[in-house]
């Protein structure tokens, strides 16, 4: 039973009141109490409130694993705005595009992004309000960017009278996240506070989250699973432990050093730790819950993690960005779970209580129990459309036969319901793949490749695929006499995040076609098997 809605900042403020001296955030080897973090949040919220040139529902946060990143997210929400996370690891061109697509006029910048800031500001035409930590910034930045307004949080006076925006409604915006788009342009998914509240409320009750919990914060802010870490943790007065970039790949020591109780990552992290012999028996005794999401979870990973964290409940979560973080779960039980797996992949499990699902055929009709079909989702966690994109919204957010006016999100995920009622993931209905948990539309990579190669005859293939997950992509190009691989990869690197840049490009005489005259991606994968 869902608890009555309250705004995302209310949970944090309640924790500030109840536990002012408890640790709220550990980042960059620095520990901030709820009271410390609250002070930073108030200053940022106040800076937004007082300096916004025109009212706009979103504020962009360009920061990464720093105090500004977390205070910026909370500050935006406390000022009554949704946040748009930007990522300094992404190419500048992609960041500029996401900023432009969002329409944001306020940009919060962490000091870790300062070296890239001049490059970004030079390409942004409309005047921005740029919120920085201190005036101690790059020489000439202010004089060369006089059309932008710069505000320094350090100089914002403590405003006792400033009231944080607790009066949000379920439809108030929480965040706008950009995912890979099949037309070559990232698409924005607006998630409301009501969507996030439904998730946070359910998860806090399910996992009995409390002020003694110590949460991992492993995901970049541009990955929506980061919203779980922050909002679930702060709702109940827990402490959030940001995994430093250098430990993201192999966080075993970090888990032990910080005595974490709540772990959340993509399954690939478990796989990497396994291969590096870092999942020894009972090496993570402090963990209470271990959650995995973002890509298929192989049974061997779940079992190895369970042995490494014997005091922990291991759960596989599933959910597209459009359904807010996760909307289904499966609890791993060493005795019974192996038989529930399909192709050695742990089931998606059951949809959260209070949310709805249907498994449908291509006409939207429900398939018979046990038959494969597309998973459609509905309920208080599900978004209502894409940002400024009515065409894509109409395609993916639909009415289903016999479901009145209820709006359903077509996930594009093929599933089948097993005998025990658990949903099992079977694959995709389209060309979307997951790389290290990131959603990637191959068409977006191909759009960049076409531009870079000057030919339409390009195709990208997920490769290698191990345990149901792609580790990267490679590309094939035809119709050229020669290929300057380094030049083409450099263009890709300027436009795409590293996980979308092809690892190799092969020049072939022609691209193989299947009987339907479409490019035969399976044949290309077979070709790669031969090369490997």
């Amino acid at each position, binding site marked *: 039973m869902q608890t009555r809605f309250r705004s995302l900042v209310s949970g944090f403020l309640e924790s500030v009141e109840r536990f002012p001296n408890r640790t709220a955030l550990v980042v960059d080897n620095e520990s901030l109490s709820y009271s410390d973090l609250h002070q930073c949040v108030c200053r940022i919220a106040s800076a937004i409130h007082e300096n916004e040139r025109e009212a706009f529902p979103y504020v962009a946060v360009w920061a990464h694993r720093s105090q500004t990143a977390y205070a910026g997210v909370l500050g935006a929400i406390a000022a009554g705005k949704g946040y748009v996370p930007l990522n300094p690891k992404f190419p500048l061109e992609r960041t500029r595009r996401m900023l432009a697509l969002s329409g944001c006029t306020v940009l919060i910048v962490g000091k870790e992004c300062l070296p890239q800031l001049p490059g970004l500001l030079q390409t942004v035409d409309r005047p921005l309000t740029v919120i920085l930590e201190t005036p101690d910034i790059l020489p000439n930045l202010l004089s060369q960017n006089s059309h932008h307004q710069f505000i320094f949080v350090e100089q914002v006076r403590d405003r006792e009278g400033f009231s944080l925006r607790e009066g949000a409604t379920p439809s108030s915006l929480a965040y706008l996240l950009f995912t890979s788009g099949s037309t070559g342009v990232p698409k924005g998914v607006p998630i409301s506070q009501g969507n996030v509240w439904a998730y946070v409320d359910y998860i806090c009750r399910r996992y009995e989250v409390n002020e003694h919990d110590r949460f991992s914060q492993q995901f970049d802010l541009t990955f929506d699973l980061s919203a779980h870490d922050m909002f679930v943790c702060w709702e109940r007065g827990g402490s959030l432990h940001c995994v430093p970039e250098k*430990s*993201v790949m*192999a966080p075993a*020591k970090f888990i032990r050093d910080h005595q974490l109780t709540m772990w959340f990552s993509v399954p690939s992290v478990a796989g*990497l730790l396994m291969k590096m*012999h870092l999942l020894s028996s009972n090496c993570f005794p402090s963990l209470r819950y271990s959650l995995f999401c973002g890509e298929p979870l192989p049974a061997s990973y779940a079992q190895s993690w369970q042995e490494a964290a014997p005091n922990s409940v291991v759960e596989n979560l599933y959910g597209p960005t459009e359904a807010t973080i996760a909307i289904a779960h499966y609890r791993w039980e060493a005795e019974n779970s192996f038989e529930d797996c399909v192709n050695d992949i742990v089931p998606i499990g059951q949809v959260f209580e209070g949310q709805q699902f249907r498994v449908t055929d291509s006409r939207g009709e429900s398939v018979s129990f046990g038959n494969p079909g597309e998973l459609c989702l509905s309920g208080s966690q599900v978004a209502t459309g894409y940002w400024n994109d009515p065409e894509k919204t109409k395609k993916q957010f639909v009415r289903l036969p016999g479901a009145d006016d209820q709006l359903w999100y077509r996930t594009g995920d093929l599933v089948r319901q097993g005998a025990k009622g658990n949903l099992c993931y079977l694959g995709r209905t389209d060309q979307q793949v997951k790389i290290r948990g990131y959603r990637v539309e191959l068409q977006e990579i191909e759009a960049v490749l076409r531009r870079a190669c000057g030919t339409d005859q390009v195709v990208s293939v997920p490769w290698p695929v191990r345990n149901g997950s792609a580790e990267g992509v490679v590309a094939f190009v035809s119709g050229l006499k020669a290929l300057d691989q*380094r030049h083409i990869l450099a263009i890709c690197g300027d436009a795409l995040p*590293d996980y979308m840049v092809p690892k190799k490009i092969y020049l072939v005489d022609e691209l193989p076609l299947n009987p339907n005259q479409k490019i035969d991606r399976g044949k290309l994968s077979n070709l790669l098997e031969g090369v490997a």
Partner: protein
Amino acid sequence: MRAVAEQELIHMVIDWVKENGLNDASRAQVSETTNLLESGILDSFAFVDLVLFIEKCTQKKLDLVDANPEEFTIVKSLCHLALQNGHK
């Protein structure tokens, strides 16, 4: 089987990274002080492949349980760890 010396292992690792690294420009510059992940030469999956390569060269399991990531992502330190802490 002959035991591999640290300097020899460093050379083998550098050759492996030059062959298998992701970033053309950076991998040409790889040296024993290069941080393989921060430089972007290897991603996490390629790093695991490198660990497996080192284990094959040394015939030992690489023990990274208590190693700091900033230590084991640098070529020289990684090779040192592989020969110091590894176990059969």
